[in-house]
């Protein structure tokens, strides 16, 4: 069991850290988006905007006949209307519209947290053959194994339930951190990992729907999506047509859903006589991410189709909602963030302990590889994230090219982090911790210089998202310096503590 826990941890630890880190950031993705897209730092919307007056003219001009285009309505977390479509080159485009004036905001030139950190969390930006999903799936299964085996291996965690001795020798203190973060957030880590796997049941366990829908008239996946998610389709007619009032459809939806609002409007085949409009109900009200959908005829505004989750799907949507945390609850959001970071701490401290316990026994290439992977994958990932934020504030240009450059900065710094750790393993993570401290502070300063919104101004202006991101960055800076300093001290009794701690 010790071997299982150790080797599963060493093999997927780095990957798990990256997944937990990106997931924790995704908890506040919309808030980080405001930080990264200063044009969208608008006052909170006062009421539902008129889509016919604000969005339709812009969408007709920008998206034209591209099918479909999508509107995400403004919310407490996103004050701007979001318009998504694919351009003539087939590239996805995301633009923002001021709901008060209907003005098209300048291009963000950034994917933001929702476009970069969030997909990173579940598919690692590896689209080829779904390999990203599968790697995350394997890591998720390994995490469940690690959690269960960890409770057995660290058999004293319940008698040492509240034990944290930061002043003891480093390996002992590291193990305390590992056990403490592991056991105290264990319910969260277990539920979040299991729910993450259940979200992608159709990828990880495709035989279920393939067998159930083997006899369907259309492809199994299409038939399954129709039943599970209420996907409704019809082909374009080729005849030109006019779009009826979207505001009237929103009003009908409000009546149909007993006063609850739509958050998402998608227009299929715009400009065609067979155009149709899909409305999705807001998921901000409760834990389950409902799949309530309405489909309207584009020309007449008549209701064509209505979908609501069936019992089994409703359970899946509840579990998905637990994980996606799209509901309105600031305190839970903050606790999810902290618990996610506790997962990062657990994984990183586990890896550090493994390295510290072995460094004195044997060197070798394997050891060095794990060393580089661990340091590059933990402190290197954090450093690359901060470089991404810094690049967001200093890169020139606009549009998709700038967004791509921002991503390349992330990956370049990440590779550098791995190389640095591989070439200079001695104290590499301490150097990178110090770099994190500097980079986090630089990001805050750059935000103040380039947007004029320093943390105090953000608070005064009610821009809590910006103030929050700045605050967490400053905290990161302080913490990184503290950790680097603490790691610098090497108590004389370290070696004996390792021997004693091995069986902790």
């Amino acid at each position, binding site marked *: 069991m010790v071997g299982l826990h150790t080797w599963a941890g060493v093999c997927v630890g780095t990957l798990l850290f990256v997944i937990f880190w990106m997931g924790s950031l995704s908890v506040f993705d919309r808030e980080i988006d405001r930080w990264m897209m200063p044009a969208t730092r608008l006052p909170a919307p006062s009421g539902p905007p008129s889509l016919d007056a604000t969005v339709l003219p812009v969408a007709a001009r920008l998206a034209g006949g591209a099918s479909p285009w999508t509107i995400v309505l403004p919310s407490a977390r996103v004050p701007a209307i979001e318009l998504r479509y694919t351009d003539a080159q087939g590239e996805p485009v995301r633009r923002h519209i001021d709901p008060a004036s209907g003005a098209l905001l300048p291009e963000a030139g950034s994917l933001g947290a929702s476009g970069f950190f969030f997909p990173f969390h579940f598919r690692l930006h590896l689209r080829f053959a779904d390999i990203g999903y599968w790697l995350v799936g394997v890591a998720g299964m390994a995490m469940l194994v690690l959690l269960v085996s960890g409770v057995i291996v660290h058999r004293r965690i319940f*008698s*040492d*339930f*509240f*034990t*944290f*001795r*930061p002043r003891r020798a480093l390996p002992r203190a590291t193990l305390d951190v590992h056990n*403490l973060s592991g056991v*105290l*957030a264990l*319910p*969260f880590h277990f539920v979040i990992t299991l729910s993450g796997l259940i979200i992608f049941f159709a990828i990880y366990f495709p035989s279920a729907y393939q067998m159930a829908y083997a006899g369907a008239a259309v492809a199994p996946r299409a038939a399954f999506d129709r039943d599970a998610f209420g996907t409704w389709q019809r082909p374009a007619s080729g005849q030109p047509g006019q779009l009826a009032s979207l505001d009237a459809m929103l009003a009908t939806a409000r009546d149909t859903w007993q006063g609850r609002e739509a958050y998402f409007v998608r227009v299929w085949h715009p400009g065609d006589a067979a155009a149709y409009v899909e409305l999705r109900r807001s998921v901000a009200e*409760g*834990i389950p991410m409902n799949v309530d959908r309405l489909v309207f005829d584009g020309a007449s505004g008549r209701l064509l189709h209505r979908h609501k989750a069936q019992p089994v799907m409703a359970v899946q949507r509840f579990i998905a909602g*637990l994980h996606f945390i799209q*509901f309105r*609850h600031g*305190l*839970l959001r903050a*606790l*999810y963030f*902290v*618990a996610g970071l506790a997962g990062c701490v657990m994984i990183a401290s586990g890896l550090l302990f493994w390295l510290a316990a072995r460094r004195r026994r044997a060197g070798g290439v394997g050891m060095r590889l794990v060393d580089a992977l661990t340091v590059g994958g933990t402190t290197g990932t954090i450093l690359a994230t901060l470089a991404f934020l810094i690049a967001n504030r200093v890169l020139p240009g606009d549009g998709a090219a700038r967004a791509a450059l921002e991503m390349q900065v992330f990956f370049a710094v990440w590779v550098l982090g791995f190389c640095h750790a591989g070439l200079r393993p001695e104290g590499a993570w301490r150097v990178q911790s110090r770099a994190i401290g500097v980079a986090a502070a630089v990001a805050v300063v750059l935000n103040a210089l380039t947007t004029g919104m320093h943390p105090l101004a953000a608070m005064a202006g009610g821009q809590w998202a910006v103030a929050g991101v700045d605050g967490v960055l400053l905290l990161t800076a302080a913490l990184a310096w503290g950790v680097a300093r603490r790691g610098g001290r090497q108590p004389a009794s370290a070696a004996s503590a390792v021997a004693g701690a091995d069986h902790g």
Partner: protein
Amino acid sequence: MAEALLLAACLAGYAGFGLLAVSMARHWRELAGDAALPPARCRALRRVGALAIAGSFALVLWRDGGGFGSLLGILLLSACATAVAFTLSARPRWLTGFAERLAERSR
């Protein structure tokens, strides 16, 4: 009202885990040294601690309902337990006085 319930839940959770921690052999030794904790008092500590934790969870359920409440309860209790662990490592003196009062005065 919501804030008051939340504060009460935090305090109950912190107190509950604090009582459990004091009743545990390892932490008792750290706090009270060689002084013994009478078994009856140990059981009482655990019982009151568990009750306080259950009370904290109930308060959160009352505040936020079954769905959000149960999620918040689990996460909040994790946070309370963490706070107790940090208290024991950084400010054990906050608890030593309490432990000394519970200890059996054999000497």
